[in-house]
């Protein structure tokens, strides 16, 4: 039997999916701004971030109302709690995209330091993680969420690699310092997006399996 409450839960899910689409787009725009040295795209990321901020507040408001009015139990309760966490992570992904876009703008002021290789690779990986984790949410596939978590190490390793390479650039030629630091920040932000995808994945495993898998390898 479909309840009125089910419709309200469905609306909350739709809000999250719209928010996820904006978050994914903002990361894609930030990277494109970096690779194509496009300042206009970088500014678009700011707009998307403002949108994500509002959406996060909307999801939290609806979540709080549903808890107050519907006294959710079991999977309904987990869904609302996880929905609010998902909104937080998506909003933070938007913040990371803004940071990348701002670095991209600064980088356009100087000639390219080097052809970008590792950063686009990292970007592709965290975008896939984000996309997969949202699929795991939509299609109720906790196993897919677990796969996402397994990818996080590869992102961390790439970040380390980028850091080492850029450090050697700076040692060899102080002229490269500001560009290298900007690129390092970009890599660091991508690594953070990977962390947010991991947090999302943990939330989704909790949602569908009622199992808390956080902090197990620490």
């Amino acid at each position, binding site marked *: *039997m479909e309840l009125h409450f089910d419709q309200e839960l469905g609306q909350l899910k739709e809000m999250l999916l719209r928010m996820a689409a904006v978050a994914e787009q903002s990361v894609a725009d930030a990277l494109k701004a970096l690779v194509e040295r496009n300042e206009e795209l970088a500014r678009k990321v700011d707009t998307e971030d403002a949108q994500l901020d509002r959406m996060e507040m909307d999801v939290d408001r609806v979540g709080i109302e549903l808890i*107050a009015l519907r*006294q959710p139990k079991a999977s309904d309760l987990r869904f609302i709690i996880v929905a609010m966490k998902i909104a937080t992570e998506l909003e933070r992904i938007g913040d990371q995209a803004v940071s990348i876009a701002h670095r991209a703008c600064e980088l356009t002021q100087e000639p390219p330091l080097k052809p970008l290789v590792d950063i686009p690779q990292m970007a592709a990986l965290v975008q896939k993680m984000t996309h997969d984790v949202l699929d795991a949410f939509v299609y109720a596939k906790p196993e897919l969420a677990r796969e996402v978590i397994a990818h996080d190490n590869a992102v961390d390793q790439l970040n380390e690699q980028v850091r080492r390479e850029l450090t050697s650039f700076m040692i060899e030629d102080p002229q490269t310092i500001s560009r290298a630091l900007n690129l390092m920040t970009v890599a660091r932000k991508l690594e953070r997006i990977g962390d947010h995808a991991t947090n999302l994945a943990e939330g989704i495993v909790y949602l569908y399996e009622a199992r808390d898998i956080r902090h197990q390898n620490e």
Partner: protein
Amino acid sequence: MDNTVFELTKLNFWYGPSQALYDVDVTIRRNQNTALIGPSGCGKSTLLRCLNRMNDLIERTRVQGSIMLHGQDVYAPEVDVIELRKRVGMVFQKSNPFPKSIADNIAYGLRIQGVTAKGELSDRIEASLRKAALWDEVKDRLQESAMALSGGQQQRLCIARAIAVEPEVLLMDEPCSALDPVATAKIEELIQDLKKEYTIVIVTHNMQQAARVSDYTAFFYLGKLVEFDATTKIFTNPANKQTEDYVTGRFG
């Protein structure tokens, strides 16, 4: 567009010498569910029964202030109380089907209204039972006694009977308090469906029920309206400390 159905201004009410309501101001809005909550004796049922003058049936009661139904004074001398109760139907705590068949329970009010054609009667019986989410359970036994239905079904039959005469407002006085959780859930779903067509005022001592089914909530204490606001506001951030204590179970 004016969405006001009932406008209560400075309503006071007495049972003999004892005052039950003090200066109550409330607006009931169209196609919205309004819940009246508060501890026993707070006046919520008294207020509900003022809306269609059910209190007239109790001796030595007295009303002061005004209740306007679409701008017309409910207590004006020229008001036909029968007509009023047709517009403002009521469902009670204990289901009270007539000791007749399921179909006749619904047909009763319709026949009084002059509906006698067989075809129209059966159409309206079916429509009412469908609206009350009872049709699928009783369609093959419409001629059986209503007394054979379960408590939850009887209550939905009473709702079907109330809406058969096409009222504008439905008053519900603790409609689920005699029902088990499953029957209660069905009535609650029904209440949320019915607001598309009716304006509902429900008295409940179950706060969670008020939260689940209503759009507006009025909290009463000792005959006074303490707070009236959107249900989301009352249950997430009430303005009044007494309301907060009541909805959080710390008082009442």
